[in-house]
């Protein structure tokens, strides 16, 4: 009987948490869409989430493209289809790997910091101080991250795609001898604008997931994770894990339902 009670309590707690996450998202989106919009804070967060992630995106994009170039060439040459290396690298990066890997990188680099920063503000009563000044903490701490993530993640994804395609080019064309004209020519024939837009649509979704989960975990530090430094550390870990899992699950959902197509 006690076991059933425990399961019931746990389920109710999870449903309440999901409800709170839903309300958090609604409040955040409402603050993003209504004035006053805190432009300096948004620019600061774009600099943090976007500009400061450039190096990691550049590196992961280049090496992902290079690996795809190698593996793609080895696989395609078995069937005598190495001419299709360009479209293979392009489509894999633009439709799937670009949005997903960029989002995972941003989660690890910027998302964790966002959770830690907001979490520390929560446990040191800085969020309470904002509220008691009659100011809305969502507007100052959450909305700028949402807008910045929605702007930055698609841009980072685009950069990842471009760098990855050139990584594939470097290996396929310069190292393994695929013709440069064939690499880009076939890519242009097979990669449609819809594929590019699908990738960007996914990255917009992932940007929202990162901002939503990481801000929520930080904002509710202490409610679900215990207090103090340990609470912030747990919240940060949970934010990265949950964001990453949600990105992969949502990617599957978007791909399988072909929502965008």
């Amino acid at each position, binding site marked *: 009987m006690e076991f059933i009670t425990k399961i019931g309590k746990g389920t109710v707690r999870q449903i309440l948490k999901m409800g709170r996450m839903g309300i958090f998202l609604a409040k955040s989106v409402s603050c993003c869409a209504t004035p006053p919009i805190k432009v300096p804070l948004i620019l600061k967060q774009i600099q943090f989430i976007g500009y400061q992630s450039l190096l990691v995106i550049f590196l992961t994009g280049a090496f992902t493209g290079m690996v795809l170039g190698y593996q793609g060439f080895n696989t395609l040459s078995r069937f005598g289809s190495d001419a299709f290396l360009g479209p293979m690298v392009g489509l894999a990066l633009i439709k799937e790997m670009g949005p997903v890997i960029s989002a995972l990188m941003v989660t690890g680099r910027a998302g964790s910091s966002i959770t830690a920063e907001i979490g520390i503000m929560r446990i*040191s009563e800085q969020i*309470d*101080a904002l*509220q008691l*000044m*009659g*100011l809305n903490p969502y507007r100052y701490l959450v909305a700028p991250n949402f807008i910045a993530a929605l702007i930055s993640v698609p841009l980072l994804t685009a950069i990842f795609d471009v760098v990855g395609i050139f990584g594939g080019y470097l290996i396929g064309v310069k190292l393994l001898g695929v013709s440069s004209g064939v690499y880009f020519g076939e890519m242009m024939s097979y990669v449609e604008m819809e594929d590019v837009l699908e990738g960007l649509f996914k990255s917009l979704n992932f940007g929202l997931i990162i901002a939503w989960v990481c801000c929520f975990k930080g904002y509710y530090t202490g409610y679900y994770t215990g207090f103090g430094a340990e609470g912030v550390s747990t919240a940060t870990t949970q934010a990265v894990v949950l964001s990453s899992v949600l990105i992969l699950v949502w990617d599957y959902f978007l791909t399988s339902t072909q929502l965008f197509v």
Partner: protein
Amino acid sequence: MIKIEDLHKSFNGMAVLKGVNLEVEKGALLALIGRSGYGKSVLLKHVAGLLRPDQGRILVDDQDMCRLRGRDLIRVRNRLGFLFQSGALFDSMTIFDNVAFPLREKTKLSEQEIREKVLVELEQVGLAGSEEKYPSQISGGMVKRASLARALVEEPEIMLIDEPTTGLDPLTGHTILNLIDTCHKRLGFSGIVVTHEVPKIFEIVNKVVMLHEGRVIFAGTPEEILSSQDDTVQTFVAAGAEWLTHDASCPPPMLERRKKNIHAL
């Protein structure tokens, strides 16, 4: 001005407040004393609307804080100043920016006017020259003073002060209490001070309320608490009064008066 009626609050089934009633008149400063863990800070957070009670009402000028939402709540909070136990300064901002923050966000004052106002406020709390420092670069006493300046810069009608001297040495603690007294006389706010600084706090407040095990066991003037016949009240006050005979910072006539009051216990 502030009226608390039959306030109950529990956390995870443990009752912290069990029917608290108290009242703060306009312009009066009330000291909320009692042992640690008996719900003083919880009570203060209810008055600020940061916590919702399980039962009871908190009226600020006849407006029930428990029912207020959205803009109505913001309107009341705009009249409040809150000094947190930890200071709660924004640690990524300088002291100047911390104090200027509410003015920048809530008023249409020019940057020059804000600068003048902030510098005057920092001067009042004795922090002139520390404007460009960050909270992590100053002492605990300075953090409390900066936090007080931030709370007072908007000239609130109501001040809620949570353990302003905790973690400070006795002299710095007394300086902070004297500062609160000076600011109270200057601005005329109504307020509640949660403190353990007994009996020093009796010099600056108009009324004292003692919480014990979630209930008010004493409410009266500082003079009345010194002559209270309640054992718990007497013990608490006497424990705080032990240092009296060694208080070098106190003028002799006041020291004599204090000694007389304590001996009368």
